[in-house]
């Protein structure tokens, strides 16, 4: 079983977080994976697979992490939690720097460092969303 954590917190001003590739990207990626998938997230996020666990407390998330074969996520608290749990996974990066916010135990997929935000320490509201900043879904499959 593979666990996915697809979405980062929405921006303060509203709109998609540039650290999130978006619904269509995830649908494309999920279609390529021939393995049971569960999704974790919060209320209001789009459901991408039949099993979607919302608003779970941290201990329950840790249980799911330990039960899955691996996981795919983006740069959000979840990648830190899974790292803390000792379960390596795949992190899809775009504008935030995996050398600062990532963990070398994970597979950190970044299309190109030229897409990184020039200031890594501001709110992400000031950074435009760029789907091309993410590696293509078929590339992710090579590391699964």
């Amino acid at each position: 079983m593979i666990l996915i954590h697809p979405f980062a917190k929405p921006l303060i001003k509203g709109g998609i977080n540039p650290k999130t590739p978006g619904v269509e990207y995830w649908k494309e990626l999920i279609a390529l994976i021939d393995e049971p998938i569960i999704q974790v997230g919060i209320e209001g996020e789009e459901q991408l697979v039949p099993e979607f666990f919302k608003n779970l407390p941290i201990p329950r998330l840790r249980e799911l992490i330990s039960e899955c074969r691996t996981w795919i996520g983006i740069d959000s608290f979840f990648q830190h939690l899974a790292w803390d749990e000792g379960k390596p996974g795949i992190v899809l990066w775009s504008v935030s720097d995996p050398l600062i916010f990532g963990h070398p135990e994970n597979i950190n997929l970044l299309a190109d460092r030229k897409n990184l935000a020039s200031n890594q320490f501001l709110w992400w509201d000031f950074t435009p969303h760029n789907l091309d900043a993410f590696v293509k879904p078929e590339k992710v499959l090579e590391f699964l």
Partner: protein
Amino acid sequence: MDKILCSIATRGRYYSTFPLVLSAIINQTKLPDKLVIFDDNDEPKDMRQELAYYYFFQMLELKGVKWEWVFAEKKGQHHIHQMANTSDCQWVWRVDDDAIPEPNVLENLYRIATKIDNVGAVGGSVLTPPLIFDTSKSTGKIADIDLEPNIQWNVIHNITEVEHLHCSFLYRAGVHDYNLGLSRVAHREETLFTYGLHQKGYKILVVPDAVTWHMKNPQGGIRSETRQEMYEHDEKIFRNIIGNSGNNIVVLNSGLGDHIVFNRILPEIPNPVVFTCYPEVVSGRSIAEATTLFGDLDQWNIYKKMAQWKWTGSLEAAYRKLYL
């Protein structure tokens, strides 16, 4: 070669003690690399039109000292000093606009600061004639601050390690932040600042042969506010900080993931007192309480710190730099 910034905040003293201070700086045996004047006057003027100032600026340029006149935001001198603290200079010599240094002050402060390992700040005597206090039993420790005259209020005969400094001193820039939660009077701001350097493990020294004459002037001054509640507000923050002197204050005013990463280093921090947004991840007291106790929390803001440090390492390493 380290760069030295000389920083002065001034208010209401254009025509009294401030020109004396400028003259004293220009005539130092070791000159700073740059002089920055933060003008906090209610009605600031272009002092380049004043003859004495005109000559001062010419003298600075002839001596190769860059200078800058900054019109400050009238928030108090702690905001001004924080601007100097985060400049690109390695050392900041802060001078008051009514405190006149003898010609050898910067040379001797800098010599000691760079001769002895791990110095955070170094100050000399700050004398207000005709007063000379008996400091023979003064320790310079924060715990004795209510019990003794400041060790800088008399002639200093030996290099002595203390825990806090007063008025004018040379300090290592970018290590510890001024507490921007203090009111405009910034009561005890320099004591809190130098004590913060001490708490970070840097030596705070008083040294001989570095006398500054403090011509206390009831007219003007960066602290020329009379509202008692401002002093009471600042005193409360001061007491709360020194009341935690045996502890390491940790403020996690950040995201859930940051708390998870921080958790890895928590066991290595001696005597932590933690304030947290996510007590289910890192247990502790509330951020609202931290704000009430300490005023400003920016000195613990890991994102602000990483931006200030132009950080390229990991988040965990940044937390280590901040707390260990």
